[in-house]
């Protein structure tokens, strides 16, 4: 761990009954860096994301998190209220299904403003102005601010979720297959959006994806998981262009060329 490490995991282990989902996993993340976690379904990548974001407690191992004041905390020893506060402001979580994060009975603007209010914002005019600003950042017509999310397309819902997540300027965002289930044209637009926002706001991201092309375009570093173990990790283009582990070689060689 270095002085500026944002998140560090050591020896994470987690089992679903007899099935090992994480087997002594180490990971490290620095500010402003995008780390992709790839592997087939069932490889443990979503479990890792949930443990790193304290949504799931590991059977053993520890996750260290450095707060904005520079102090290190054992994530899973933090009080529930502190964790909730973290998730409301300093962190964000982008789900594959935006409905898990959005409130479908609250307007688009309300969905964005709610996170600001949870952090303590009270002035209605400011909240609305910031919501409008964020809707346009994610290329949603601000004229739709009072519409309910159920009138939005899948791609718009995903962009609304991103606006809701980023409005508090989190330092660390967890993303679980953020472009999964979207049409490719919508996917391209979303990738461009994530890439530019993450670079401009200097956000650190842990990105879970099964799509190696997305990992290549967005991530500085990559971890390849198989049956709960990290079988290979390193610089994204090096791991994808010069894979060392048999499983990574299999993954890379199985990708269809468009």
């Amino acid at each position, binding site marked *: 761990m270095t002085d500026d490490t944002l998140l560090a995991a050591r020896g994470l282990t987690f089992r679903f009954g007899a099935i090992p989902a994480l087997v002594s996993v180490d990971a490290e993340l620095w500010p402003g860096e995008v780390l992709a976690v790839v592997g087939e379904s069932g490889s443990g990548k979503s479990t890792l994301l949930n443990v790193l974001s304290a949504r799931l407690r590991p059977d053993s191992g520890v996750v260290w998190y450095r707060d904005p004041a520079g102090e290190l905390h054992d994530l899973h020893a933090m009080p529930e209220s502190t964790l909730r506060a973290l998730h409301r402001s300093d962190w964000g979580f982008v789900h594959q299904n935006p409905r898990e994060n959005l409130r479908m009975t609250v307007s688009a603007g309300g969905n964005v403003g709610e996170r600001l209010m949870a952090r303590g914002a009270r002035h209605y005019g400011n909240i609305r102005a910031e919501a409008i600003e964020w809707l346009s950042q994610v290329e949603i017509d601000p004229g739709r601010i009072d519409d309910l999310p159920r009138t939005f397309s899948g791609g718009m819902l995903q962009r609304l979720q991103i606006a809701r997540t980023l409005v508090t300027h989190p330092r660390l965002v967890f993303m679980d297959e953020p472009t999964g289930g979207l049409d490719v044209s919508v996917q391209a637009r979303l990738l*461009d959006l994530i890439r530019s926002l993450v670079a401009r706001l200097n956000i650190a991201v842990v990105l879970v994806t099964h799509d190696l092309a997305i990992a290549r375009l967005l991530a500085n570093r990559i971890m390849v998981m198989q049956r709960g173990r990290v079988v290979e990790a*390193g610089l994204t283009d090096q791991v994808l262009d010069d894979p060392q582990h048999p499983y990574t070689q299999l993954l890379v060689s199985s990708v269809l060329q468009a």
Partner: protein
Amino acid sequence: MTVMLRTEGLAKLFVLHLQGGVRIPVLRDVDFEVRAGECVAISGPSGSGKTTLLRSLYGNYRADGGRIWVRHDGALLNLAAAPPRTVVAVRARTLGYVSQFLRVVPRVPALDIVADAARDMPHEEARRRAAALLSRLNISPRLHPLPPATFSGGEQQRVNLARGFIGDRPVLLLDEPTASLDENNRDIVVQMIIEAKSSGIAVVGIFHDLVVRRKVADRLYEITPLQDAA
């Protein structure tokens, strides 16, 4: 002149696990260096490992033995042993690479792709320089706001070149930079390489075009193919 890049005993071996673990040694005992303001052309028959060497120098392929010294922020750093985060920093400030293929996020305009590759330049200046470079490479301003996915092969290569040259990084690696260019554009790229050299940039390249090679290269580094030791 200052040594900008030097390899010592560089070795690269591919192990193909899906083909029964066959081992293909490509590089062994590669010792070469390039100094500021100099251009070294890697030469050798097809399949001898020219691209493998260039990619290893960029950290795109992992060296299996030896050292790759790069002058980064004034001091020599062994890229072959550097953690990924350091390699990212070396690429951001020191090491530029022009590959034969353009790989970018779809939907991003050509101008932004080039401007994003500039080093710590202010945004507006980066866009101005990107536009100037693209225009110099005969990419008409009409095309600057378009994503290059629909561009011709030669146009994509020129976007790639603009991206490689914009940062004025002290070491530039070029993989067949003129392969799909016509004569006019080829001459422009030759001129850009000559200018880069005179500003002190160290260039390592693979140039199949012998006219280009004669014009830009100060020395050749010959690769001899290794015997398959499988």
